[in-house]
Structure formats: structure tokens, C-alpha cells
């Protein structure tokens, strides 16, 4: 049934497609993460001048299809004279840059809301207790506030990274040869499903499994205190130490 010669012939192309997908995922994911940290602080702030502009940004980005955002950046922006005459014009002519920009803005919006939710759910007593123990503001932020928020955000953030990986398939619509584009090209050349889209599906499935495993390990590392089997194994001396500290 399966035509293995097509698969073997196209394997190098799929391999290059995988690399493009991974580069898009990593660059957009890291940029989104870096932007979401300050933005989520502003979003969770009680000051309306800080939280509202961020809310409007995330609302618009989360309320419109990513494909529309991608087309506005790639096809739409060149219509504007300001863009064509600016120093950034060479960037906006590049489909890869446009895809990266669209994915970064989109994942920033979702990640900001996830982090802002985690920040809002910080128990006030946790921060108050740390302050009462004499920790400085920076110490509270670094040792209490951010680690707690990160732990609360981690499961949802893992989902968002998988969603971002799936979203990179849209880059195929603006001429970028990532995994799905390779699959489509094989389909148009040979008119076979399994060897084209089936192969692309295998790659995406594998990426989903790997990402899920990575986040499961991260959750094990950061959320170990919630594992009932682990806390059951705490030795008596450790229990006493905890009680004394509390």
C-alpha cells in the first residue's frame, strides 16, 4: 500500500521542514515568553493605565484568527507607505520574519493571560509572610513570587507551547517550507495521502509527544510537592523540620 520509495526520496525534505518548524517554534516561543513576563505584571496590576492597554492587546490578538493576523502582516503591511519607506522594510518583505512576528505576538497574548492569571492567584499571605520574615522586595519577587506564579502557570503554559507548535503549520500558507508545506508539495506531485500528509502527521505527532514529555518532566521538577506519593515518603526528621519552620 505505502509507496516507500516516495517516503525515502522525500525524507531529506521532511527533515529540513522539521528544522524550519523547530526554528519557528523556538524563536517565537522564547520571544513570546520574554515579552509575556513584563506584560503579565502590567496586566495583573491594579492600576488601570497599566492593565487596560495590555488587556486590549491580548483581547484583539486572542479574538481574531491567527491566519488573519499573519495575512495582515505579510500581505497587508506592504500596502502602507510608512512600512515601505522605513528601515524595517527588508524584514517585512521576508516571509520568515512575518511568520515569526505573527506567531510571537499571538503567543505573547495567550501567555500573558496565563501568567497574569497565575500572578492574580498568588496568595497574599505568601508574600506577606515573606515580607514579615524580613525578605527584601527583590528577594520576595525572586524567591517567592515568580517561582509560585511559574508553578501555577506551568500546566497551561505547556498547552500553549503545543498550540504554538501546531500554529506554525500556518506558515505554509505564506510560502515557508515547514513540515506541512513539504507534505502538501508531496501531495500535489504524487497525489498520495499517506506518503504526504500522513508523513507530516507523523512528524507533528512526534513533536507533540516530545513537547508533552518535556513539560511532564518540568511539572515533575517544579510541582513535586503536590505529588501524593512523594510527600508520603517524607522521612520523620523532615516532617519535624517542616513543622518547626511553619
Amino acid at each position, binding site marked *: 500500500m505505502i509507496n516507500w520509495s516516495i517516503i525515502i526520496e522525500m525524507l531529506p525534505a521532511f527533515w529540513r521542514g522539521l528544522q524550519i518548524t523547530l526554528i519557528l517554534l523556538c524563536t517565537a516561543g522564547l520571544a513570546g515568553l520574554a515579552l509575556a513576563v513584563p506584560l503579565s505584571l502590567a496586566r495583573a496590576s491594579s492600576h488601570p493605565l497599566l492593565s487596560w492597554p495590555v488587556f486590549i492587546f491580548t483581547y*484583539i490578538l486572542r*479574538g*481574531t*484568527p*491567527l*491566519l*488573519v*493576523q499573519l*495575512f*495582515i502582516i505579510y*500581505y*497587508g*503591511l*506592504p*500596502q*502602507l507607505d510608512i512600512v515601505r519607506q522605513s528601515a524595517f522594510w527588508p524584514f517585512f518583505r521576508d516571509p520568515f520574519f512575518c511568520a515569526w512576528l505573527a506567531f510571537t505576538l499571538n503567543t505573547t497574548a495567550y501567555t500573558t493571560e496565563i501568567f497574569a492569571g497565575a500572578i492574580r492567584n498568588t496568595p497574599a499571605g505568601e508574600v506577606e509572610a515573606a515580607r514579615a520574615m524580613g525578605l527584601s522586595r527583590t528577594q520576595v519577587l525572586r524567591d517567592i513570587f515568580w517561582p509560585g506564579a511559574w508553578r501555577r502557570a506551568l500546566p497551561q503554559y505547556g498547552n500553549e507551547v503545543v498550540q504554538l507548535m*501546531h*500554529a506554525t*503549520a*500556518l506558515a*505554509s*500558507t505564506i510560502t515557508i517550507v515547514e513540515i*506541512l508545506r513539504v*507534505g*502538501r508539495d508531496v*501531495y500535489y506531485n504524487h497525489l498520495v*495521502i499517506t506518503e504526504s*500528509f*500522513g508523513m*507530516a*502527521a507523523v512528524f*507533528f*505527532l512526534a513533536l*507533540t*509527544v516530545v513537547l508533552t514529555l518535556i513539560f511532564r518532566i518540568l511539572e515533575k521538577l517544579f510541582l513535586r510537592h503536590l505529588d501524593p506519593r512523594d510527600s508520603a515518603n517524607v522521612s520523620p526528621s523532615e516532617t519535624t523540620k517542616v513543622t518547626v519552620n511553619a
Partner: protein
Amino acid sequence: MFHGYLPMILDGLRVTLSVAVVSLAVASVFGMMGAVAKLSASPVLRAVAGTYTTVIRALPDLLLMLVIFYGGQILLNTITQAQGWGYVDVNAFMAGTITLGFVFGAYLTETFRGAILAIPRGQIEAAQSIGLSRGQVLRNVTIPQMVRHALPGFTNNWLVLLKATALVSIIGLDDMMHRASLASAATREPFTFYMIVGAIYLAITTVSILGLGALNWRMSRSLRREAVG
């Protein structure tokens, strides 16, 4: 304004909304079947439903759409040719709605499963013990409460599904996105037309959030009274 292309875009909005609503109906059917299968006693049904939700949720929407569209076409023609019926062209609207419905059915399966599990077991037992039939229990006890528990997840899935309708232009449906690309090509103003499409999507999202939020508020009023009392 907009070189007279606005009516054409709004006509495409009708297609987009029809795709979204019909897909949601198809997805609800797949979701309900999936949820019942996942909660059934039969290991085969559970395995089928488990594979369905896991595989669908692990793949990009666009890939699934292309696979089901092209794959479905090939499959259908293999069958019709074997029967001697000749070539059948798959209708793009049907292909789009069935695909979106099948994909989002996997997400709704989880929503519905959770909603059924959220109903206290004792209520169903109580209904059975006062002599209600299986159908009556389902109609009068399970479904009304399931709707309330499922509504937040259902709202979320509707919002994601709505945005996914932008993809149907890729498999040849004449929706808002496709109209915008035609208008862009004719006027050389892609920014204007894609911004209009974006604004329309944002408006539908906002109306959906407000409407379904109000519905959720109404449906959970018994819970609020409990919380106050």
C-alpha cells in the same frame, strides 16, 4: 467606501457564519458520541474514543483539514468507482463543516465527558429509584444539568472553532477570507480588507462572549442562591 467591495465581504460573512454554526452542530454530535463512548463499559468503545481525542488534539487543524478534505475525496471516489457510479466532486461546504466538526468534536468530547461526570451520581440513582426510565433520567436529570456544566467549556470551544473557520478558504470555500483576498488582489489594498475581516471576527467574538456569558449567569443562578443561603 472600500471601492464597493464591502457588500461582497459581508456576503462572505454569511458563508463564514454558516460554516461555523453547522460545524458546531456536527462537533456537538461527535462530542456527545465521544463522551458516551468514553464513559461506556465497553473497552472497545473507550479505546476508539480515546484514540480519536488523542490523535486529533495532537495534530494541527490545518493538517487535519487537508487530510480529511483530500483523503475523503479519494476515499469517496474509490468507493463510487468500485460501484460504477463515476466521479463525485466533494462539495467544499460539506467538506469544510464535516472536517471542522470532526476536529472540534474531539475537544467537545472532553467538555461533555467532564460535564456528565460533574453530575452527582446520587441524583441519577435517586431518579431511577423513584421509577423513572432510562430515557426519562437522561431527559430530565442528566441533560439539563450537563448543559450547565458544559457551557463554559462549550463557549471556549465555540470561540476557537469560530477562529478556525478562517482556514476553510484554504480548501476552496468562498468565505470572508477568500472574498478579502479577491478584493485585495483587485484593489491592491490587502491591509484594508484583512483588517475589515479581523474586525468582523473580533465583533463576533465579543457578541459571543457577552451572549454566552449572560446565558451562563442565568443557568447557574441556582448555584449562586445556594452560595448566598
